C-alpha cells in the first residue's frame, strides 16, 4: 500500500544564501532515485513537506517550475527548530521530501488573459514557479505584470534573476522597498500603495497575490478598487501543517484543509469561510 507519510530521499545540489543576515537560503534538490523523479509531476503553487529525520518536517512552496527539469528549488527562512537545522545543510547532504502536495494556481484559466502577480518578501517562492511557467509558455498568455516588494534591497530573493527579468520586454517587473535607501533605482513604497499607483488594468486579467498577512490584508481592497472581480483574485494561504494530506486537522479553516483543499484559493471562495481572512 502506498504510504505518503514516508519521505523520499533528495540530494542537496546547490545552496545560495540570499541575504547578508543569512536568514534566507535557497536549496536546489535533485532526486536520489530515478523512479521518484519520473513520478514527480507538479504545477506552480504546490508545496512539499521537507523532512529532517530526527527533527521534524516543515512545508515549503515549490519555487522551481515544472518546466525546469531535474531539480526542485525551495527558499527557506530560518525561523524555528526545523528551519535552523535545514540551514545547516550543505551541498551533497540528503534531505527527505514528501510531495507534491496541495492544489495549484489555475494556469489553465489564465490562458489567453493577462496575469498580474503581486508578491512580498520571501513569499515570492511559488510566484517564481508561476512566472517561469508562464514565460515557458509565453504565447499562451497576455501581458505579464509583476509587483514585488521587500522591506529593504537585501531581502529580495532570486536577485540575479530579477536583474534578467527587468531587462525582458515581454513582461513588466516593478520592484519596491518600504523606505528610501541610497542607491535604490526602483520604486519606494508599501506594496498596496505601489499597486494602487501602478493601477494594473483588470480588463481580461487575473491577479495572484502572495505575501505576509499584513500585505495581503491591505492589497486586497486595492485590487477590489481596481475592479478585479473576487473570483479572479487568487491567493495562497499558509497555516501550520503536519500531515500535508488533509487528515491531521492542524491546517483546518472552516470546511477546508489548507494542505489539500488549498493552499491556492480565490478571494471569492475565501469570503465564504469566516476564519480565512
Amino acid at each position, binding site marked *: 500500500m502506498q504510504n505518503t507519510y514516508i519521505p523520499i530521499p533528495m540530494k542537496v545540489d546547490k545552496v545560495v544564501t540570499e541575504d547578508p543576515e543569512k536568514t534566507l537560503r535557497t536549496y536546489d534538490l535533485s532526486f536520489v532515485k530515478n523512479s521518484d523523479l519520473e513520478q514527480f509531476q507538479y504545477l506552480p503553487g504546490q508545496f512539499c513537506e521537507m523532512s529532517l*529525520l530526527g527533527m521534524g518536517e516543515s512545508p515549503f512552496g515549490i519555487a522551481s517550475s515544472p518546466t525546469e527539469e531535474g531539480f526542485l528549488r525551495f527558499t527557506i527562512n530560518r525561523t524555528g527548530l526545523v528551519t535552523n537545522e535545514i540551514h545547516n545543510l550543505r551541498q551533497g547532504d540528503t534531505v527527505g521530501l514528501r510531495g507534491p502536495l496541495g492544489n495549484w494556481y489555475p494556469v489553465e484559466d489564465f490562458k489567453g488573459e493577462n496575469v498580474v502577480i503581486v508578491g512580498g518578501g520571501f513569499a515570492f517562492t511559488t510566484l517564481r514557479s508561476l512566472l517561469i511557467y508562464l514565460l515557458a509558455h509565453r504565447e499562451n498568455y497576455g501581458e505579464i505584470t509583476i509587483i514585488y516588494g521587500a522591506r529593504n534591497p537585501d531581502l529580495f530573493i532570486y536577485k540575479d534573476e530579477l536583474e534578467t527579468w527587468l531587462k525582458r520586454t515581454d513582461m513588466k517587473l516593478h520592484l519596491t522597498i518600504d523606505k528610501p535607501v541610497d542607491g535604490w533605482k526602483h520604486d519606494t513604497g508599501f506594496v498596496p500603495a505601489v499597486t494602487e499607483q501602478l493601477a494594473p488594468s483588470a480588463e481580461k486579467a487575473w491577479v495572484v497575490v502572495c505575501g505576509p498577512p499584513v500585505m495581503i490584508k491591505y492589497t486586497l481592497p486595492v485590487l477590489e478598487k481596481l475592479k478585479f472581480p473576487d473570483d479572479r483574485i487568487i491567493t495562497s494561504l499558509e497555516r501550520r501543517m503536519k500531515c500535508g494530506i488533509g487528515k491531521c486537522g492542524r491546517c483546518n479553516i472552516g470546511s477546508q484543509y489548507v494542505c489539500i483543499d488549498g493552499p491556492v484559493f480565490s478571494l471569492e471562495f475565501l469570503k465564504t469561510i469566516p476564519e480565512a481572512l
Partner: protein
Amino acid sequence: MIKIEKSNFVTFIRSLSAEYNLFAPTGEGRQSAFREVKDIKQINSQIQITHNSPKTVFLPQTEILFEFKGDDIQSVQKATKPMFFWGVRSCDARGLNLLDKVMGQSKQRPDDPAFQDPYWKARFDDAIILTLACNEPASTCFCNWTGGNPFSKEAGDLWAVETETAYLIEPISEKGKDFIKKLSGYHTASEKDEQKIKALKKQAESCLQPAVDTKTLKEKLPKIWDDPLWDEVSAKCVNCSACAFICPTCYCFDIQDEGKKGKGKRIRTWDCCMFPIFTKEASGHNPRSLARERVRQRVMHKFNYFWETYGESLCTGCGRCIRVCPVNLDIRDVAKQLLETASAA
C-alpha cells in the same frame, strides 16, 4: 436473522476468537475499553458504553509511523488476523464510518491511494464490526439528537440485539452476509423474537431525552459566528482536550520525531484543536490564540464544517464528553443555547 442462545454464547465467542482477533468491551468504569479477548469471562456485557471508544484500536493514541537509521527508513506494519468487534454501540459504529471517510478515503482526492492512510486501512478495511443495540441508553446518551437511534442498523457489518435468553443477529453489509453464511448450527429467529425486538426498541427510545435536532445547527451556526455567546460558552472550558481524546470521531493528530539525527522514529499521537498552541506558527503568529476561538472551532467542526464537506454530523451523540469533562461542560446545553441564539439572530 439468526438466534444464538445464551447457553451457546461461550462456543460462539470461542470460535470467533479462534478465527479473528476478537475485540469486545472489557474492564470497569474508567478502565472500560475495547480490548482483545480470548475468553467470554473477559467481556463486560453489563456496560452500556465503554469509557474509551473503539477509536483507540483503529487510530491508537500513539503509533510509530516509521523508524529510521541514518537515511534508511523502515515502516513498521505487522500483518495480523482480521479483527472482529463484538458489542459496538451504534454511535460508535457510526463514528468509525465517519473516521473512515477522513482516514481511509479522501474527499478531495478520491481514488488516489496517496491520500489514504495506510495504517488506518490495514486495521479497518478487513475488520468486522458488530453493532449491538442499546437496550438501556444512559442518561448522557443523545444519539437521537444527531440523527441516530439506539437500535440503528445504519453502521457496522452485523447487527445484534440482546434478549433475556439469546442474541439475535442479522447482517448489514456484504461482509456481514459472508460472515453469517459461514456460521452453522444456529436457529433462525422467530416471529415472537421479532415482536420482542419491537418492544425492546420502544423501551430503549423511551429512555432518551426528547430530541433537539442538531441538523439545523448546520445552517444557523454561521449566523452567530461573532456572537458574544461564544465567550459565555467557552468561559468554563480549560482546553484540557479530554472531550476530544474520548470522542469516537475526533481525529486530529500530531506527528513528532523521537530520537535524534541518525537514529529514531517518527510517531503520530492524538492532538486537539483546543490546545492553545495547536495552530501556533513558527513566526509566533497564532490564528486561534483565544479560547473562545478554539471552543468555537470544535463545535463548528462537529455541527457545521463536517456537514459542509460530508453531508453528515461529526457528533454521534455518544455522551462521553459529558461524562469526562472536568468542568461539566455539557454539549447538549451548548447546542440548545446556540440554537436559541441563532434562531433569534
